[in-house]
């Protein structure tokens, strides 16, 4: 078993009818990492995750899950929170967690003990014997999440885990993800909310139009865009556009432009020599959000026939 990668896939493709929803995605999730799959709605994130887990079979490509060529063989080592949450409404919260653990091979006695602990830790101890149909949507979602970790999986796959949660529960979920990472689990989750990815991900892949557009760390993603400079001269009359880069745009008293390849120093030298001075200067690194928008907005690369 190759311990370096918890998940690896190459050339995954899936067609629904005439539409190719996943079109040759490669992915490699390092063991022990928190790995994000980012993409706009309909990008193919969920289909990719479902193929990785063996819920559906790819039309093309290969994947391994925890070293197993067939994901089913590793199913007891995996926890999964699907995008479309689903629990039996007539089940009690504790029983739902025990059942989900039992599906993954956890014996019922251990499942019962852990379910109580997990519910208490999540602040849901009072709802242990409450039927799912009587819980709020957010509480039910947390119960399902607890059910997906009760068997202490080596790999935790979460599809849009933050959707539908209020900010308090989003923080709880982030803490739970980091807790699972600290326990030694690998986390693979999909989202289109950049803030979560920026805070949690060690690495990420950006998928759009069924294709992987980027793979790397958050910093590397942000690095795909050049930093932007915001400059306010002390003497606006002397800050001639000729002294600034060609893309400089005036916004009130400020000038904004992309940080030149040669750095900011030559520009500042020219401005100081001309007596424009510096009232204010900031170099802003692009956010993941901006990088995402730029990456996703790129035209799809045409594949050779």
């Amino acid at each position: 078993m190759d311990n370096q990668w918890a998940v690896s896939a190459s050339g995954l493709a899936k067609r629904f009818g005439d539409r190719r929803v996943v079109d040759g995605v490669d992915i490699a999730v390092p063991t022990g990492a928190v790995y994000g799959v980012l993409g706009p709605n309909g990008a193919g994130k969920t289909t990719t995750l479902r193929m990785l887990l063996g819920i559906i079979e790819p039309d093309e490509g290969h994947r391994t899950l925890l070293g197993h060529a067939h994901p089913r063989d590793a199913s007891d080592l995996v926890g999964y929170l699907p995008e479309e949450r689903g629990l039996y409404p007539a089940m009690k919260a504790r029983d739902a967690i025990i059942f989900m653990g039992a599906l993954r091979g956890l014996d019922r006695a251990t499942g019962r003990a852990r379910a109580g602990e997990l519910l208490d830790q999540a602040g849901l101890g009072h709802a242990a014997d409450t039927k799912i149909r009587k819980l709020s949507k957010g509480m039910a979602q947390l119960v399902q999440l607890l059910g997906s970790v009760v068997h202490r999986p080596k790999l935790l796959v979460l599809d849009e885990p933050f959707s539908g949660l209020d900010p308090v529960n989003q923080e709880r979920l982030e803490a739970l993800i980091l807790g699972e990472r600290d326990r030694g689990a690998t986390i693979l989750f999909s989202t289109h909310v950049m803030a979560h990815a920026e805070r949690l991900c060690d690495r990420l892949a950006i998928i759009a139009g069924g294709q992987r557009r980027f793979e790397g760390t958050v910093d590397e993603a942000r690095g795909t865009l050049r930093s932007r400079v915001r400059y306010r001269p002390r003497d606006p009359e002397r800050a001639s556009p000729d002294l600034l880069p060609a893309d400089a745009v005036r916004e009130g008293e400020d000038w904004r432009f992309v940080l030149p390849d040669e750095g900011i120093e030559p520009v500042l030298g020219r401005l100081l020599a001309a007596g424009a001075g510096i009232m204010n200067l900031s170099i802003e690194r692009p956010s993941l959000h901006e990088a995402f928008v730029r990456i996703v907005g790129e035209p799809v690369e045409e594949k050779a026939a």
Partner: protein
Amino acid sequence: MSRTRRLLRQTMTIARRDFVATVFTPIFLLFLFAPLIMVAFSTIGAMGAAQAADHGADHVRIVAIVPNAVAGAFVEADKRARIVFRRDEEPPALAILSPSGEPAAQARKTFESGDYDATAVLYGPLDRPTILYGPRGTRAADYLAVLASSALSAERLGGELPRVEATKVPFSRQRATLGGQNQTAFLAVFGVFFLTLFLAGQVVGTMAEERSNKVIEVLAAAVPLEAVFLGKLLGMFGVAVLFIGFWGTVLGQVTSVLPPAFSGMVGELSPAVGLPMFTLLFVTYFTMAYLLLGSVFLTIGAQASTMREIQMLSLPITIVQVGMFTLTLSGLSKPDSWLAVIAEVFPLSSPFAMAGMAAASDSLWPHAVALAWQALWVAIFVTMGARLFRRGVLQSGSVRPFWRRKGA
């Protein structure tokens, strides 16, 4: 853990959930006691009808208009003849009238009597009596003729018929009677059909719950769909066994509620393979019939996306079951015919036909072959159901069978 053990564990996890979710609900009590409700209404109706019938029967008489000299012989003949009848099958009570006036007119007048309802009236000389009878009175008329014959014989033998002191010794035949075997075969087929008709159809809607509340995604990610299908089938089979066990126990304890005709029928069961083996085979074939029909219904029901579609399936499902029953009965009436062979080989009718065969033939090896054949088809139906569901509902291609997978 081996793949087989894991599949078994996953199957039983699903089965347990379905069993518990079905049994621990108020609706299950309604389901469990549905026969009681049916029996209660039937009993009330039957009691009312029986009371009305008894009330009428109390007033029905067969009448013999005979001279006083032979009245005693007539009464004695009635006593002798009556003992061969069961209580509820006895002819109406005998009334003796002395001749007065014109016999034919007296007999006709007897039907108008306000004291009783005459169903047949005998008059005239005993060697050539005339018997008038009313509607449904032909058997009563025959009975009066038999009494006349006995009374005449007694009269000619000096007033009394010779007494015969018979020694009755119960005897159990070693070989089942042909009539008993046929009756047992029919009962076996009908029993399997009756139980599966009421119980197997429930399987059709079981996947609807998972589809409607999205749990199917959780299940499909954790366990193979084959385990989901088989688990659901076994869970519902557990419910059926609980139902049958409950009512079997109740009926076993309260045999007095069974009608005498039924008790007699049970006593005449004479399967060719012997009663213990027949019981075992009957239970096994019911299991196979449930699993075979249930797996087909589950497969079809899993494709339905709404409750309306599932409800619409109930009629074709019933027709399929009745069709299998009819096919089997046709084969049963002509053993060794091609129809019988088809019924025994066709997977959905095979359990019915083989249950019938257990009653009619003492060979055991065909049952071993049939059970293996039926188990194979259960596996085929479950696998097909899972694949159709994966393709149609999960929109996936099929999983490669494990023997065609490359090693990890």
